[in-house]
């Protein structure tokens, strides 16, 4: 059983997805418990695996017992072990939060929603742990196709923006596939470790560089690195809120993981940073993504769209941090994958709660929320502080490494972009808070104590559903806990995930 854990991470939600689909026709009450049990099992397996990696080193698993390069290998090391825990936890938390809202929003389609949710999680977790470049593509398609379907569940423009995502996503995946095809032609292998062993003897080779560029470009589309971000904001904005709080924290982050994995484990650090001239151009793309993403966020009038553009800017943080090519920058990028997943979950859940109650997330209509939804707003404040980068929330610490790496590499443009984005995030969120806090209907000194009735019309507390609210608050607390333990995470896990001998 213990030996089969890597397979179980993927197999349990996959089978549960089929089970949920079937059960929807028989006993609907069972769907949610099965779904949450499946994701919980994945989470438990991921945690166990990470602990095993920490004590024994990387874990290899051959599907069906076929050794690579013939069979498909799963390989869990410090990097994907850590991210798998984060991804399964985000998926678990979001699923725990979404029942009330989802069942009200999807009604007859709730069963499909749970099934797609499970498949999507399967795909992402598979991408994380696979050691096979082509298998990765397959799982990428699983998560993408389910992602399209999930995004399309929303009302109104959702299916149109989902379609846009289908087109862009397909182009991205095809480019990645093309890159893998090149690699297969060159090396005759699809196993990552195998390719990595063969490649050095073939260098220097323009074909290898071509393969690398194709893979990267495909991934840039999938992770919405500016200027290839066009599909993201609308897709996330018009999606049902419980879908965007699943997809927004995870998709881009997992794609950044794939970039790191492909670069380090397939092509090698030395090749990527010394033998191609890609470092500076990508760094500038990242700077552009951060700056323009932030500015675009500034011009939005809807909460979810504003948050979506913040996601675009955050992608720049991680891409730039990784391509700084030093220990601090890369640690910052990996740590930010974890932190940003939870920060994004927190703010999107809060946005979901607001949308559920207010049924409108245009910024100017958010007045009075500090009174009517105090707990939700408190969680949103914590999430916002983390995105701005105020200690002791976790966002501060990943920003610390990123800035530190930028200074070390002498890339002051990147440092300036990070600071700029923090400032813009400050403006963005305090603008929202200002609207929520200052109410035109509340004259000063109007009422004496809380026990007297607040001004008419602004109403009493109407919080989000209990399940959503509990998870939201837990996530907000987690942001602070992660911050306080970020030193441990970096020294005990992330430093071991990076190539040894990194300056």
């Amino acid at each position, binding site marked *: 059983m213990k030996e089969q854990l890597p397979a179980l991470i993927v197999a349990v939600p996959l089978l549960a997805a089929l089970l949920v689909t079937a059960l929807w026709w028989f006993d609907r009450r069972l769907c949610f418990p099965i779904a949450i049990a499946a994701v919980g099992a994945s989470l438990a397996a991921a945690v166990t695996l990470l602990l095993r990696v920490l004590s024994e080193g990387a874990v290899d698993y051959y599907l069906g017992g076929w050794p690579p390069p013939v069979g498909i290998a799963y390989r869990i090391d410090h990097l994907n072990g850590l991210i798998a825990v984060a991804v399964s936890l985000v998926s678990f938390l979001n699923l725990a939060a979404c029942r009330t809202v989802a069942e009200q929003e999807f009604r007859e389609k709730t069963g499909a929603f749970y099934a797609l949710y499970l498949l999507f999680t399967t795909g992402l977790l598979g991408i994380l742990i696979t050691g096979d470049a082509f298998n990765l593509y397959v799982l990428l398609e699983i998560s993408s196709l389910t992602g399209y379907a999930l995004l399309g569940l929303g009302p109104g423009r959702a299916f149109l923006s989902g379609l846009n995502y289908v087109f862009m996503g397909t182009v991205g995946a095809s480019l990645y596939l093309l890159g893998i095809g090149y690699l297969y032609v060159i090396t005759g292998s699809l196993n990552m470790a195998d390719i990595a062993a063969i490649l050095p003897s073939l260098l220097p080779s323009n074909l290898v560089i071509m393969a690398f560029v194709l893979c990267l470009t495909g991934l840039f589309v999938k992770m919405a690195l500016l200027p290839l971000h066009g599909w993201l904001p609308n897709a996330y904005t018009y999606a049902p809120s419980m879908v965007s709080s699943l997809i927004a924290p995870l998709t881009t982050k997992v794609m950044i993981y794939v970039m790191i994995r492909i670069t380090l484990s397939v092509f090698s650090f030395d090749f990527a940073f010394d033998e191609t001239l890609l470092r500076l151009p990508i760094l500038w793309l990242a700077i552009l993504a951060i700056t323009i993403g932030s500015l675009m966020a500034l011009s939005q009038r809807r909460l979810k769209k504003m948050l979506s553009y913040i996601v675009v800017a955050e992608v720049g943080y991680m891409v730039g941090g990784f391509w700084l090519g030093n220990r*601090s920058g890369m640690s910052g990028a990996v740590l930010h994958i974890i932190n940003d997943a939870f920060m994004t979950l927190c703010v999107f859940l809060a946005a979901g709660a607001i949308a559920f109650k207010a049924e409108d997330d245009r910024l100017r209509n958010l007045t009075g929320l500090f009174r009517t939804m105090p707990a939700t707003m408190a969680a949103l404040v914590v999430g916002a*502080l983390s995105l*701005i*980068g*105020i*200690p*002791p929330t976790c966002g501060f*610490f990943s920003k*610390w490494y990123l*800035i*530190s790496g930028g*200074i*070390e590499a002498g890339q002051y443009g990147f*440092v300036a972009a990070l*600071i700029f984005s*923090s*400032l813009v995030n*400050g403006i963005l969120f*305090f603008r929202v808070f*200002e609207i929520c*806090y*200052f*109410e035109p209907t*509340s*004259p*000063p*000194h*109007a*009422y*004496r*104590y*809380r*026990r007297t009735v607040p001004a008419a019309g602004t109403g009493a507390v109407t919080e989000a559903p209990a399940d959503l609210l509990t998870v939201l608050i837990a996530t907000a607390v987690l942001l602070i806990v992660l*911050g*306080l*333990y*970020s*030193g*441990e995470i*970096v*020294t005990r896990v992330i430093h071991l995930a990076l190539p040894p001998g990194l300056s």
Partner: protein
Amino acid sequence: MTVEPLQTMVSIRPLIAVLVSLLVIPILMSSARSPNVREAWTLGAAALKFLVVASMLPLVLGGFQIEYSIARVLPGYGLELRVDALGMLFALVSSSLWIVTSIYSIGYMRGLKEHAQTRYYCFFALSLSATIGVAFSANLLTMYLFYEVLSLATYPLVTHHQDPEARSSGRKYLVFILGTSIAMVLPAMVFIAQKTGTLTFAPQGIAAGTIGPQAATVLLLLFVFGFAKAALMPFHAWLPAAMVAPTPVSALLHAVAVVKVGVFCILRVMTSIFGTGMLTDLNISTAVCTIAAFTMIVSSLIALSQDGLKRRLAFSTIGQLSYIVLGAALLSKSGLIGAALHIAMHAFGKITLFFCAGAIFVASGVKNVSGMAGIGRRMPLTMAAFFIGSLSVIGLPPGGGFISKWHLAIGTVEAHQFVMLAALLVSSLLNAAYFLPVVYRAFFCPEPESLFTGPVQEAPTWCLLPPLLTAAASVVLFFYPQPFLDLARLAAQSIFGG
């Protein structure tokens, strides 16, 4: 230059001192329905906090440093607390004045029937936690953390009235305070961590030898302006704007806690990050001196022209904060003693003045200096306290401010900065020029010009008692400046030796 090594002991007491007011917040929230219970908890927390801080005083005076490590958040840098003489001085001032301000808040907030009082007391408590956190920080990272927490905790207090004026002031407040700390302090701090590998305060500084002169100049300016709570010009505009807050907030936060956190951070960075030795060698602190002197004179001139009493006090605060920065930038022993002492002395004087301003507003609704002619006849006790408070801020005996300004003046002579001495004296004259006429016209304006007649009618006791207390404290501090003087001397000794 010999510096005796301090003895170090580990104790959780600094953390308790920080947490007391944080942990009382849930209690305050749950007792929102019974204001008397809620206020009792606030007072209890304030008293407990003061006792915890004061319990560490004998140890600090006995040459101990008290340390406690909370968490290692970054490899090499943790959240760590350390109580030394300078931090002790500041913590003592803030925690003792919180008690007085809490008493005053009860009178003021109930007297004006303010809304959302529970929120007010909660964020007040949070602000005090952050203030003590800054005072007891052992490294720059911890200090930055609490600095930011304080910035955010005071925002709902500044914007308490939730009207358009509060909204625009709150905006200004955040832009100046949060903007500068993210844009200037954060990169400067990461740069120092990156180059030196440490952020822990050391008596001789940590930057010497690893950071070149140009970089040091830029970093110093980033810190001096970045800690915008110190309100050095041109980053001062938030302070007059913040005066829209209820008066107890202006009194404790914008005369004591918040603004002193700003100068305290500058003091710490100059002495314990750069180190006086390095600043002397590079000769870059003259720039800071000049900025401080400029702020001192200009803000006093502006104060002269302010009719709003609280705004006049705010500009006065801006000037007095610069005294402290100037004292630190002189890099002389007496200068530092004067700077540290002025944190305490100005606190007691200025809080008295704010309490009086609030008492006048509660009792008679007057907000402007021009409306105060003859008010001494109506509120003699309040105006007497106001008089003592202004003496202390001007630096005249028997106000405690005399002692700190005396040390500052000696400090300028020690540093051979005679221009700065002149600036100090001119500024003190200006202080007198914007305070004394207010007092004079309150008591001695001719009968026909007086706006107040009739019997004595003071503010409610809860509002009247605190200014009398702090005014008395100002006078007592003139005659018995210990323990603040001892703490200031200890702090200077650990840096300059001897």
